[in-house]
């Protein structure tokens, strides 16, 4: 399931209802990304997530379908917030359920690695020292690259979607 929303969400509540009632689920992996105040840096006031409506939902759907095709998942969940949020609030949550732990872990990490670099979100940080757009990290590109290049929306020169 995919949700892109301006409203705050509660990862604990999401976990509570995720994959419940499925007797064949032996393993659930979750990842939650939160707005973080980095020690030693100008104190963060707020983080704003801009996105590309339409493309976001489509790409997240493709990424989830890709995870379902690669691993035997009983369920998967991607929640991504947009808009302005405060330190401590959850930005993103990924959850995966499978019979076995390797599939749950790998699919969960695959999804968050792709989200970081391939989904059309952009972060804008307001700190006590000013505000700026967050630059992309090479380490995030490397993390996404280790999963290969199968997402159809990430086509090369001759690619069609």
């Amino acid at each position, binding site marked *: 399931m995919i949700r892109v929303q301006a409203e705050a969400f509660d990862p604990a509540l999401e976990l509570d209802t995720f994959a419940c009632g499925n007797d064949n689920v032996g393993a659930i992996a979750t990842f939650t*990304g939160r707005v973080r105040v980095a020690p030693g840096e100008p104190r963060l006031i707020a983080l704003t*997530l*801009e*996105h*590309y409506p*339409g*493309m976001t939902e*489509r*790409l997240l759907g493709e990424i989830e379908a890709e995870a379902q095709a690669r691993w035997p998942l009983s369920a998967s969940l991607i929640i*991504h917030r947009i808009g302005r949020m405060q330190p401590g609030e959850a*930005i*993103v949550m990924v959850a995966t359920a499978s019979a076995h732990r390797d599939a749950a872990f790998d699919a969960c990490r695959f999804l*968050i690695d792709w*989200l*970081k*670099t*391939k*989904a*059309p*979100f*952009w*972060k*804008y940080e307001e700190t006590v020292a000013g505000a700026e*757009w*967050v*630059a*992309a*990290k090479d380490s*995030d590109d490397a993390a996404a690259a280790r999963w290969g290049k199968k997402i*159809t*929306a*990430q*086509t*090369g*020169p001759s*690619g*069609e*979607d």
Partner: protein
Amino acid sequence: MKLRYFAWVRVQVGYAEEDLELPLQVVTVRDLLAWLATRGPKFDALLTRSETIRVAVDQAVVERDHAVRDAVEVALFPPMTGG
């Protein structure tokens, strides 16, 4: 064709979207970026950083030699920073 701008590209351009008719010589994404640079200082300044700009044609990220003529929507934005 609709052009859409996101994140600092949107801020630099000064608005989020516009409807444009492409000149005949604009065939690929590369042509589009070159032509946009002729539309004034805002675009010229934007395109001096063009290597950091990603382009999506009809919501799929594409390379510079991808065709744009039949696109409904083309978007310009910096590398994604979600998650």
